[in-house]
């Protein structure tokens, strides 16, 4: 619950705005209360608390280990990366003084040499100074074979790291790797003085009492209930304006919504408000409901190793007869935006010239007829003794998706396509069933990019098929020589326009080949209390508490 003695409710005229942007609002504050332009100013000192609701539990405090979205939500406030991605997709410096680029000379022309200058005067929560040694240690820790690092993609290209001064370091890559810039936007630096020399890097006291350089400090963790952070008054950046952040675990989205309604939660995050409560939620007093687009795509992932689905005509007919509007309109109350590619429109490489999705079951039926798929005795199409039949799987307990499956099954049955539902618990579905492409088709919500970089080599590259001992997650078993070539080039080029052209073409090919059928752009309905200022959706990060340092109560 929010602090009732909140500054915003007793506006203080002595508050000095800390953001240039807000300077103009000092005058606006004199306008009659409730005027739309009145932008209350943040408090001089951290005040009040904000309770953030999540339907998953916080698990891991170490920001370089495998974790879930809630962990990321906490990390953004506890730790800092060198730079981040803002909602518009632009890099902005955090621990680095400036974002390195070809233009400012931070990255050499060949893309191999990187020189980073760090912000001065940054201190860890325990008062120790933050230095280039910490960055070097963090990079080394990821590559430590005994350490259970989350991902090594990109980091493994770094050949050598040299510390040139307390706030300056330089590294060299084995070969250029364009996605590294984005990957590093989620590279949270850990304190060398706390972690160096640990016997088991996977299990240190740091896990229970993490310290970082972020706007909030670790206060307490109550397993099964919440994690609490308190304001770091020595934070180097703007904020924090809140005294406490509470990351509340509410395992059920309906209960979470109820608690948001009763005011127990100030912000409703991960998994958000169920779509069926949206209409009611909008009518709540003193609540702001945000329908926010995410960087993911709700899609049918097809297994091209399946004897029926390997045929392109079938995939195209399926997409033509996939009534996305019935799903988004009725089941999701018209909230999601349509999608025809794996990138969100917010991504700089998004291809806006792709053919729109059409729903035309009659044409789909004709296409199948022409391709030799003739209705059999039971109405299901057959070709060369093969029935046009496949299963569709999703994780058990995902209600709307299950409803969408049933809707699809019924509409496809009408044109002679048999889709059977075969759902599995998450731990089973995402195990070998997924990794070894044992499914026929999956209905899932997929974020194709890593850290928002349009590189999808691990998703669509032919060397990324895990069933064939590939390294990535190309579980569709999609193989396309042109895509391979484009993607290989995409990671070594540094110019953004050249890269854009490459990924636009990749999207066009995927749209044509359809190894996955995009249904709609991932979205989430989040809510905040009306007085909570500073909330901003950023689909380039995994959690919207990314800028909680700048949140405050009006």
């Amino acid at each position, binding site marked *: 619950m929010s602090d009732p003695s909140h500054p915003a409710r007793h506006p203080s005229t002595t508050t000095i705005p800390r953001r240039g942007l807000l300077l103009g609002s000092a005058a606006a504050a004199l306008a009659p209360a409730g005027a739309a332009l009145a932008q209350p100013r943040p408090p001089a000192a951290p005040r009040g608390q904000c309770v953030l609701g999540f339907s998953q539990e916080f698990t891991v405090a170490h920001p370089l280990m495998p974790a879930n979205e809630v962990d990321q939500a906490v990390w953004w406030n506890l730790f800092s990366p060198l730079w981040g991605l803002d909602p518009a997709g632009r890099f902005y410096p955090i621990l680095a003084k400036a974002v390195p680029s070809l233009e400012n000379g931070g990255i050499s022309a060949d893309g191999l040499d990187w020189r980073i200058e760090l912000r001065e005067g940054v201190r860890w929560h325990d008062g120790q100074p933050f230095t280039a040694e910490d960055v070097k240690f963090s990079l080394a820790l990821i590559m430590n074979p005994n350490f259970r690092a989350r991902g090594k993609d990109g980091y493994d290209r770094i050949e050598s790291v040299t510390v040139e001064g307390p706030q300056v370091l330089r590294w060299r890559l084995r070969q250029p790797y364009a996605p590294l810039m984005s990957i590093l936007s989620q590279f949270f630096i850990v304190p060398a003085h706390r972690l160096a020399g640990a016997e088991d890097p996977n299990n240190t006291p740091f896990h229970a009492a993490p310290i970082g350089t972020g706007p909030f400090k670790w206060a307490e963790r109550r397993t099964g209930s919440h994690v609490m952070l308190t304001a770091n008054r020595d934070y180097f950046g703007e904020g924090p304006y809140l005294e406490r952040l509470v990351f509340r675990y509410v395992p059920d989205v309906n209960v979470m919504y109820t608690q948001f309604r009763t005011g127990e939660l100030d912000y409703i995050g991960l998994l958000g408000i169920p779509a*069926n409560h949206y209409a009611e939620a909008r009518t709540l007093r003193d609540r702001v409901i945000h329908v926010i687009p995410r960087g993911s795509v709700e899609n049918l992932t097809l297994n091209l190793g399946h004897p029926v689905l390997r045929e392109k005509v079938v995939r195209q007919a399926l997409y033509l007869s996939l009534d996305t509007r019935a799903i988004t309109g009725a089941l999701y109350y018209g909230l999601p935006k349509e999608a025809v590619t794996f990138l969100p429109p917010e991504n700089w490489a998004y291809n806006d010239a792709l053919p729109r999705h059409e729903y035309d079951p009659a044409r789909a039926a004709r296409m199948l007829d022409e391709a030799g798929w003739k209705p059999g005795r039971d109405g299901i199409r057959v070709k060369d003794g093969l029935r046009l039949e496949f299963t569709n799987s999703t994780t058990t307990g995902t209600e709307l998706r299950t*409803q969408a499956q*049933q809707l699809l099954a019924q509409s496809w049955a009408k044109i002679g396509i048999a889709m059977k539902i*075969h759902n599995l618990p998450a731990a089973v579905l995402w195990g070998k069933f997924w990794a070894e492409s044992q499914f026929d088709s999956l209905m899932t919500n997929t974020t194709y990019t890593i850290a928002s970089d349009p590189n999808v080599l691990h998703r669509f590259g032919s060397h990324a098929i895990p069933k064939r001992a590939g390294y990535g997650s190309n579980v569709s078993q999609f193989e396309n020589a042109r895509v391979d070539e484009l993607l290989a080039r995409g990671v070594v080029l540094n110019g953004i326009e050249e890269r854009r052209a490459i990924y636009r073409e990749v999207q066009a090919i995927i749209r044509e080949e359809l190894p996955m059928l995009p249904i709609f752009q991932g979205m989430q309905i989040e809510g905040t209390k009306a007085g909570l200022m500073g909330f901003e959706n950023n689909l380039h990060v995994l959690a919207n508490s990314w800028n909680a340092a700048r949140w405050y109560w009006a």
Partner: protein
Amino acid sequence: MSGASEAPIGLAAAPAAAPRPRRRDGALRRFLRHRLAAFGAGVITLMVLACAIGPYLLPFTDTEIDIMQRFAPPFSGPHLLGTDPLGRDILARLLMAGRISLSVGFSAMAISMVIGITVGLVAGYYRGWVGMVLMRFVDAMLCFPSIFLLLAISALIGPAVGSIIMLIAVTSWMEVARIVEAQIRALKARDFAVAAEALGASDARVMLRELLPNAIAPIVVAATLNVAHAILAESYVSFLGYGIQPPTPSWGNMLDNAQSYLTSAPWLAIIPGAAITLAVTSFNFIGDGLRDALDPRMGGR
């Protein structure tokens, strides 16, 4: 069980220290008892008939989606009990779900009885080493609270009807095994088993022809209560998301996610829940009546 689903069994297999029920029951009570058993039998018969015939009499099928008709409340239009989030007729689904749930109940009971009786027979007949090992295994299985066991095993298998039946069966045979083992052990000491053995009958023959029929009363009662238990167990597993998957309806998976519509469409939760309660209560009534009718001495073991 749940708190619940274990309980009917728990009550049947009253523990050693449990008090012996009185036989000097008065008229009102006996009357009531039999009334309840009759009521239970009546309800189950009606349910079976309705589930068998009902779907043919309805203008809707259980899988027919009509997205324009979603969330129609009961008694408000052509859909007698309203529609679900996909606009499917709830009555049609309820009846088809009844087929599944009742079949799951009966099949799981049958399988668990076979396992339980076999283990109980063997353990009770060959006391010694074999019996010891079997009964310790039974004890160990009973150390797991049943829901924990149910969930742990449900992770092992896919959520199809057949596997759910097996799942429930393999987690609910232990009580039966105990009952049978105790009965057989007691019966074996009695004359007719000794006589049959003396006449050179084979072990299997003595077990199946001489001993088992004499233990039939508690087995029949346990079987009835086992059906009740199985129906409950199915609903628990489904509620927790490991149950029978759509579009196949079961009473349990009709309740799955009903929580999210509790405010807007409470009938989605109330109707199948009431069906489960009614069916399980009826089986429990029947079991109770059978216990009184078949063997006045049991129930107090």
